[in-house]
């Protein structure tokens, strides 16, 4: 079949971003493991003077994995999936090719300046929005270039209808753009006062308003970076790797809108209004629940896609990654609403339960999906078999063990500490000093760090496997249609 037509898909930019995904995955998660060990063994804070303390490194971890690993993964898959489902090659447009490469190189500059500035302590302190204004401008440029690339490719497509994954990529693009700009409104102090550091700025919003905007952003950034583009991936890679069409395409359209409405506005937690009659408030709650239902559709749709084909789960390690990812997606979307219940939140907020919940989603859902997607792309991009199936299997089990260690230890740690903070003796005095509640966490923190280390080792195995695949694995003549060939 190869080359019977004049054109072929061009994966140059996808390959660039694949490298970025792997490198930034290693960097971001290594820092994650370091800070995890720092909590268990605080002497590790002092290895690199002021640059190595927990407070400096934590944002490098969170931004590194969110905007480094995850976003490059999104880009890598977009530059792969986008061409294929629109049936148009990047090679057909010099302009789009140029934009793609430009976007990549600017992204590299961006990542480098983020790492350096965070190490130096140049930060606005707002989570996932720590960058100072010059970097924000660069972010906007990179993002606009991505937009040009998406809509440019759509503009020259041959397939009339946009496949559901493309909807999700578009939503990611628009959602992040809107959120990012609003949350990062800031005034550079140098231009007002004519002195001090030129890159310093002060937030447009103060106090509670700043917090409100930030949480509106934080919550939705999670939606648009850790959920929406990952769904885009699973809607493509699971069907393609398994050879099964999506169980119900209509359900995928519905869950798209369900998700958009629910995530952005219909959380239902706003309904604490003063004198609006009770029945109105109740109706509001009921309707928001009815609205939420379809947003679960995605996960169910994915699992049902495998209906009658569960044998593949045993045979094909990539299917394992995808299926476990959607299972973790269901777990964390179940856990999220539970934590939003007022009394649960009173206990869970500020404790390790929150990072525990976050990492179900990020390690299990985001990480596994990206790793699995890039494994699927490898034989097609490099025209070689995946280097080692055995290594994938080992990686899978090691990482799964790591995740389980991570979230079980964090659940216990979070609930223990939350209970200790509020425990009182028979006279109503607090039973524990703060440091008591820190010392009990030591074993759990150690366990979490080891779990994280397992996951990180898995990432190194992935990197090695990918390197071998790209350079020295057995060449394949013809592009595989469904299951990825592996040795």
């Amino acid at each position, binding site marked *: 079949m190869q080359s019977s037509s004049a054109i072929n898909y061009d994966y140059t930019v996808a390959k660039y971003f694949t490298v970025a995904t792997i490198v930034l995955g290693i960097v971001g998660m290594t820092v994650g493991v370091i800070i995890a060990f720092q909590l268990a063994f605080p002497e590790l804070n002092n290895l690199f003077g002021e640059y190595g303390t927990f407070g400096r490194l934590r944002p490098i971890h969170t931004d590194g994995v969110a905007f480094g690993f995850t976003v490059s993964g999104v880009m890598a898959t977009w530059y792969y999936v986008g061409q294929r489902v629109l049936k148009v090659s990047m090679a057909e447009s010099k302009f789009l090719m140029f934009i793609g490469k430009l976007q990549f190189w600017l992204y590299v500059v961006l990542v480098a300046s983020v790492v350096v500035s965070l190490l130096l302590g140049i930060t606005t302190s707002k989570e996932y929005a720590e960058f100072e204004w010059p970097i924000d401008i660069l972010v906007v440029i990179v993002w606009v270039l991505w937009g040009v690339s998406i809509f440019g490719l759509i503009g020259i497509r041959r397939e009339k209808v946009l496949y559901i994954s493309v909807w999700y990529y578009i939503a990611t693009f628009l959602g992040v753009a809107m959120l990012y700009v609003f949350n990062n409104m800031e005034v550079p102090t140098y231009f007002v006062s004519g002195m001090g550091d030129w890159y310093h700025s002060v937030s447009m919003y103060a106090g509670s308003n700043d917090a409100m905007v930030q949480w509106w952003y934080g919550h939705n950034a999670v939606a648009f970076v850790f959920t929406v583009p990952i769904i885009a991936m699973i809607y493509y890679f699971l069907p*393609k790797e398994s050879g099964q069409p999506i169980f119900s395409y209509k359900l995928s359209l519905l869950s798209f809108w369900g998700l958009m409405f629910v995530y952005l506005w219909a959380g239902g937690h706003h309904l604490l209004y*003063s*004198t609006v009659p009770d029945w109105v408030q109740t109706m509001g709650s009921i309707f928001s629940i009815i609205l939420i239902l379809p947003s679960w559709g995605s996960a169910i749709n994915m699992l049902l896609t495998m209906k009658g084909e569960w044998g593949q789960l045993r045979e094909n390690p990539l299917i394992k990654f995808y299926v476990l990812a959607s299972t973790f997606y269901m777990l964390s979307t179940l856990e999220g609403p539970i934590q939003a219940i007022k009394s649960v939140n009173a206990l869970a907020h500020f404790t390790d339960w929150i990072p525990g919940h976050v990492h179900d989603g990020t390690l299990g859902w985001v990480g596994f999906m990206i790793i699995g997607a890039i494994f699927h792309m490898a034989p097609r991009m490099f025209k070689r078999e995946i280097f080692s199936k055995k290594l994938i299997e080992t990686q899978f089990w090691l990482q799964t063990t790591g995740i389980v260690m991570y979230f079980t230890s964090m659940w216990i740690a979070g609930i223990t500490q939350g209970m200790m903070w509020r425990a009182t003796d028979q006279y109503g005095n607090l039973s524990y000093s703060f440091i008591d509640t820190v010392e009990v966490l030591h074993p759990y923190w150690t366990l979490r760090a080891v779990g994280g280390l397992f996951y990180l080792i898995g990432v190194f195995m992935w990197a090695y496997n990918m390197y071998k695949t790209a350079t020295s694995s057995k060449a394949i003549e013809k592009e595989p249609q469904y299951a990825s060939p592996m040795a």
Partner: protein
Amino acid sequence: MDMEFIRNLQGWGYVAMIFGLTIGFYAYIYHLYKSQKDGVKDYEKYSRMALNDDIDDSLVESLHPQNNKKINRSVKDELAE
């Protein structure tokens, strides 16, 4: 305008939105399944876009409507014109 009034406005506005979204949303569900059943539009065929995505595979629905009657058109055919 005092805060109390704004809060009430917000409450009603919010409820109206939730009602609107829910009704619109379920109407859309009805629309999708009805169109499929009546044969107005086959949505399920679009899932083939992920499976037949080789550059030589046939298009599910060509952007150029006059071509849609010719079955199994692929990128190659479109380029040939």
